[in-house]
């Protein structure tokens, strides 16, 4: 093979490059799931507890985040921040947007969980002398959180896949890594199959972990 070729095939030298992509996908997904879940618990609790007006305002804001495609949110946000004269790294912009997007879905998940705890459970706890906060912490939170674990897992798994979209603003995660490799090697089939396997390898432990937790809770 002549050294003049425009394209160079995939080689072991690309391992580091690919693993960086894997790592970047993992890190932005974990961050978005963690931050999104924490904010989601707060949002979900406020929505479960609050009156009609606050619920309507919060609900509409969340609806925007949930219904505008993630790819558009990413482009709009990073463009807007750039236009304001404070450009931030693709990682920072991607993390913020993906976290808020995750929060919007997690908020609904947790709200349904908190609402599923019957009011009579509160009264039973209060009648034992628990304060309002003790009741929230020891009764409503643990019961509400448990009941939504399967839905939480579903959202978390989809966030890992959605993180691929952060590539559009230049974050070098798994998908963008693969695009660059494809344009260099012209071996799309092998690379996409390989990348698909990597997404599976990232998601599978989470899904397994989820099944184990669910079994434990059922016991």
């Amino acid at each position, binding site marked *: 093979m002549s050294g003049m070729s425009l394209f160079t095939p995939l080689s072991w030298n690309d391992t580091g490059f690919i693993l960086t992509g894997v790592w970047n996908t993992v890190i932005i997904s974990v961050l978005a799931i963690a931050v999104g879940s924490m904010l989601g618990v707060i949002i979900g609790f406020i929505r479960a507890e609050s009156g009609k007006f606050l619920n309507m305002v919060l609900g509409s804001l969340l609806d925007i985040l949930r219904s505008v495609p993630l790819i558009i949110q990413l482009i709009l946000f990073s463009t807007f921040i750039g236009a304001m004269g404070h450009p931030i790294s693709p990682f920072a912009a991607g993390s913020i947007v993906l976290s808020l997007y995750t929060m919007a879905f997690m908020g609904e998940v947790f709200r349904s969980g908190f609402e599923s705890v*019957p009011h*009579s459970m509160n009264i039973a706890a*209060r*009648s034992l002398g628990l304060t309002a906060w003790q009741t929230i912490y020891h009764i409503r939170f*643990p019961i509400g959180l448990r009941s939504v674990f399967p839905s939480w897992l579903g959202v978390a798994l989809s966030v890992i896949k959605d993180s691929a979209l952060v590539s559009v603003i230049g974050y070098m995660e798994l998908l963008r890594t693969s695009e660059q490799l494809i344009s260099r090697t012209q071996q799309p089939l092998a690379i996409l199959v390989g990348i698909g396997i990597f997404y599976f390898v990232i998601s599978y432990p989470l899904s397994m972990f989820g099944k184990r937790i669910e079994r434990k809770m059922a016991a």
Partner: protein
Amino acid sequence: MIDIQNVHKSFGDLEVLKGIDLKVEKGEVLSIIGGSGSGKSTLLYCINAIEGIQDGKIIVDGIDVHDKATNKDHLRQKLGMVFQQWNSFPHLTVLENAALAPRIVKKLSKDEAIEIAKKELIHVGLEDKFDIYPTKMSGGQQQRLAIARALAMRPDYMLFDEITSALDPELVGEVLDTLRILRDEGMTMICVTHEISFAREVSDQVAFFHQGIIEEMGPPEQVISNPQKEMTKKFLSKVL
């Protein structure tokens, strides 16, 4: 002593309690009977300060329950309550259910709380259920757990709100047996109940509620066996 003086309670425009007066001395068992909507359950909720009142007073051991200065969380430690729905905490084992409040409300050590919880679970006959989750138990067992959970706070009074109404008929007996044990030990109790023959058997006093007032009150031999008021006779003829 629980001293209820001229208590009025409304939900919106609907007046549910229209001037209730009664006293329950230490060691006494009071049963409250009456049709649905007569206000009997509402009164229990008012004694426990779960519901507020519009007029009158409820005094428990000298504490004015609805006074703004009263610490209601603290007061509720004196008043154990069991509801129609047992509301077991599904994320905790039977033992943890009973140990939770002693642990976090009374701030007992884990060992002390567990010890009290075990004692009360044995008390209600659940000694072989410590480590299972309550959702695996029958309604009768869960209701006995609810009683043990309340007793673990070592209350001075127990309030029972139709605790057998949601149970399958064959499970009612085991729960009533538990109440008989408490009566024999001298626990002060107010039982809102539809179990008329049980009320006749265990009560020192029976109050018949009708449309928010006490229509008739006295020892069970009078109110249940030989009622004086027309309304009482009519009610009893329907339920007995």
